[in-house]
């Protein structure tokens, strides 16, 4: 403190809106007709996925769509890529197991995404999921 120019403490321009609750984060966006997604996650640590019956969820009030891993595959939605691809000592590319956005065939941890429900309100999506 007490410096001018180089070394001076400078107030940040963005702090005023953050301190007044006027920051605008993704979760704050609220547009007319906006839909909400709720992800149904695995409650098993490691299990094979049988057939997923989405009919009850699809019939639930306010629900617009329900997608599973099979739907993602059918639509050609790829997995989550590794952000940092490295090579082994012998120059071969590292092994990169698939990370489907929604589980296919098997869930591998509690919380693994199994299906996503899209509805008019967050509560409707949650109820259906």
């Amino acid at each position, binding site marked *: 403190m007490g410096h001018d120019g180089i070394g001076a403490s400078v107030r940040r321009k963005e702090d005023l809106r953050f*301190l*007044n609750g006027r920051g605008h984060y993704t979760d704050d966006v609220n547009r007319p007709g906006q839909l909400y997604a709720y992800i149904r996650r695995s409650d098993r640590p490691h299990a094979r996925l049988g057939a997923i019956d989405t009919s009850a969820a699809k019939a639930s009030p306010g629900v617009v769509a329900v997608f599973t891993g099979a739907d993602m595959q059918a639509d050609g939605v790829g997995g989550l890529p590794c952000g940092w691809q490295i090579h082994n000592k012998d120059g071969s590319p590292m092994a990169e197991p698939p990370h489907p956005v929604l589980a296919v065939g098997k869930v591998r941890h509690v919380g693994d995404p199994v299906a996503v429900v899209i509805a008019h309100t967050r509560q409707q999506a949650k109820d259906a999921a």
Partner: protein
Amino acid sequence: MPQVSLTVNGTQHTVEVENRTLLVELLREKIGLTGTHVGCDTSQCGACVVHVDGTSVKSCTMLAVQADGAKVTTIEGLAAADGTLHPMQEMFREHHALQCGFCTPGMVMSAIDLVQSHPEGLTEHQIREGLEGNLCRCTGYHNIVKAIAAAWPLMQGKTMPVAAE
């Protein structure tokens, strides 16, 4: 559906809610005050702290119906109408106690209650303990502690009787 009447930042609101609607959902979705944040959904992070009848509350832990008849203050209600910041907001700004700003509303609301409930003064240790329900993932806590120690004399109108570093 139940109706809730409450005062938020001095304005009276009567809103229809579900039984399960949380106070934070009422504030963000029904009243449109998005300054109060939801960081975790599990009552750990403190980004949703508001004042209910003057006391800090995690608004994701309180049902909207429980706030019926209450006076609620959120981060949007702290600054004066002419834009003058609350001393706590001013000290957060002065001491660079925020970076991304996501935890800031909850931090500021918790900090104000902490200072108000300790007219005898606050040690650095007490400030750190007082913030255990508020998580910050970017600035670290050091400047937040400094800001709160600096706001104490401004809010209490006297010098701090105990030394907070």
